[in-house]
């Protein structure tokens, strides 16, 4: 064979310096980038804040207040569908709350270095998503002021709450997760708050002085902090799994057809991580543009997160199909009716849209690196996934209740304006809290990025500049 017959193709080479951890900048410059992003606000930012405040006032104070005054009759939940968009929203926001723990704790435990610049942005999402999720049991309760009956203490008749009820598990799991994820957000934040303290004056200086707790950066302080972060990372992962499993058990423990399934726990957890990581990408893309964080948030990060979303799209598809096929093959009359409702009934457009957003689009697009690193592409795909995941929860919650074992008791559910306004108000609450926090808290963990840059070096091997990583622990 002639040598000349072989076509010559030069391999595409990537410059490793395009990656954040191989592109260090002076400490002062990096600090200033983070602080400038927090302190520089345009009129557009304040306009968005004003719109969000109005939506929160209408949705939470107006619509929810009206519901408290008038009673649950103003909501669309009627026999037989007693769980509507409030429970759908609850499950959705609990799902979003899995973003921070997965991105931060699991990637930290596995020492995935690309996690470093965006762990805090994801952790912040977890805490605020849990605040919004926690509102929904109160909203759904109707008589919100009776909430304290769930608190573990005996009432005047010496009766304790039923600790063997999934609803009681729910409350304690959410409290544990909220406390855990907020402390897990705060601990690694302390060194960056100390940095902000040293750079700030006025009200910011005072605020950071209080929040930094007197941090100096001594060996002992770092040692305690690193140990605590490791303990937290390992502790918060099973708590995260338990929270959405328990939410799934709220459904799975009932005898309702379509809910009574042993696969619901892991199916919900996979769906939560799928939707949570997608929401992280959406938020990071907005932050990158709005706060000019291009240095910290690069194509490599969206590429890596895109791969995670691809894997979880496949996993979600697997669990969905396993659940679907079991119901389909069983052939029970009510289950069959439920599946027919989804495939050919009034719910069908939503059901197919869910499959397009959660299965078709991610699996057909995210294998391509060019799409994974495209801002517009990733924004549309991740927004689509969260629309798809919302639809999935809506179909699970309302669909199964509309078709039960008593055909004379079948019904339909349509959300009312009050429910829609409360839903918009809660979404606005999340965005408002996040937008305000983004101007007060350093969203980029500067010390973690610098620590990563210290351990990453380029080594020349032949013609190649090869990335090498040292274990500094």
């Amino acid at each position, binding site marked *: 064979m002639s040598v000349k017959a072989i076509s010559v193709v030069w391999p595409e080479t990537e410059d490793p310096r395009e990656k954040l951890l191989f592109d260090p900048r002076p400490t002062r410059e990096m600090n200033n980038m983070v602080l400038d992003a927090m302190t520089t606000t345009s009129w557009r930012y304040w306009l968005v804040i004003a719109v969000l405040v109005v939506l929160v006032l209408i949705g939470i104070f107006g619509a929810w207040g009206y519901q408290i005054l008038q009673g649950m009759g103003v909501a669309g939940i009627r026999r037989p569908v007693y769980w509507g968009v409030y429970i759908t929203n609850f499950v959705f926001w609990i799902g979003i709350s899995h973003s921070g723990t997965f991105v931060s704790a699991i990637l930290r435990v596995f020492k995935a270095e690309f996690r470093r610049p965006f762990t805090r942005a994801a952790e912040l999402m977890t805490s605020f998503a849990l605040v919004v999720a926690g509102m929904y049991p109160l909203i759904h309760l109707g008589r919100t002021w009776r909430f304290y009956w769930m608190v573990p203490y005996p009432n005047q008749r010496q009766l*304790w709450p039923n600790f063997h009820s999934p609803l009681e598990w729910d409350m304690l799991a959410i409290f544990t997760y909220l406390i*855990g994820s907020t402390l897990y957000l705060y601990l690694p934040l302390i060194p960056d708050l100390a940095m902000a303290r040293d750079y700030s004056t006025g009200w910011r200086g005072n605020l950071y002085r*209080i929040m930094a707790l007197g941090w100096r950066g*001594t060996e002992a302080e770092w*040692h305690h902090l690193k140990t605590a972060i490791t303990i937290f990372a390992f502790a918060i992962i099973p708590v995260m799994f*338990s929270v959405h499993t328990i939410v799934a058990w709220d459904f799975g423990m009932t005898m309702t057809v379509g809910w009574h399934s042993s696969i619901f726990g892991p199916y919900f957890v996979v769906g939560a991580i799928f939707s949570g990581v997608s929401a992280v990408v959406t938020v990071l893309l907005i932050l990158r543009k709005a706060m000019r964080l291009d240095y910290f948030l690069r194509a490599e990060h969206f590429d890596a997160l895109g791969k995670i979303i691809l894997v979880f799209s496949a996993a979600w598809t697997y669990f969905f199909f396993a659940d679907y096929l079991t119901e389909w093959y069983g052939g029970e009359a009510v289950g069959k009716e439920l599946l027919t409702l989804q495939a050919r009934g009034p719910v069908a457009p939503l059901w197919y849209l869910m499959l397009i957003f959660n299965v078709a689009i991610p699996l057909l697009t995210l294998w391509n690196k060019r799409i994974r690193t495209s801002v517009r592409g990733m924004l549309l795909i991740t927004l689509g996934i969260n629309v798809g995941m919302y639809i999935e929860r809506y179909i699970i919650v309302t669909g199964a209740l509309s078709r039960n074992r008593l055909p004379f008791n079948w019904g339909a559910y349509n959300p009312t304006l009050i429910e829609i306004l409360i839903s918009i108000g809660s979404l606005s609450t999340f965005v408002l809290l996040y937008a305000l926090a983004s101007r007060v808290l350093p969203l980029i963990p500067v010390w973690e990025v610098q620590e990563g840059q210290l351990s990453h070096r380029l080594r020349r091997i032949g013609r190649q500049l090869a990335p090498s990583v040292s274990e*500094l622990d």
Partner: protein
Amino acid sequence: MDDKTVTLVAFFVEIAPVPNTLDLLRQEGIDETDMTVISNMPYSSSILGRPMVWERLPIISLSGAFVGLLIGLFLNVGTPLLYPIRVGGQPLIPIPPSLVLTFELTMMGLIVSTFLGVLWESAFPSHGPRIGNPRISNGQIGVLFECAVDEKDRIVAVLEKQGVHDLEIINREERTL
């Protein structure tokens, strides 16, 4: 600490000379407990050539988890025994559902105690004079140490040969290692 001692911080722009500086301080008779390194990112004991810090935090965390476990057992087992409500066909203390709440409360105990443990071990919050130094936030590395007043000049001369970027004397009320 008394009037016979002085506390100094030697600032370096990079980590490389810091372990040697610590060696020199040891040779000059400074005790291991009278010096520490201050930095804007964590450096391990092996990088600095320092003895391992004995960490009580895992013990505090496990103690908290144990307290959480006891609270979980009290709610799941103690309350039905104290205030029994017997329902036909159902056990008074069902084990599988009890495991869920016991797990949550154990983890709650672990998490809260770990956080309180960090505060306790690091003596936080401390809003007194013991505040950070802006040079550290700018990326410099400080070697904070305490020595006898009459040995100060000799030690400073030794440190200056090590390429120390700057030296700062800490006020008496700020001296806490």
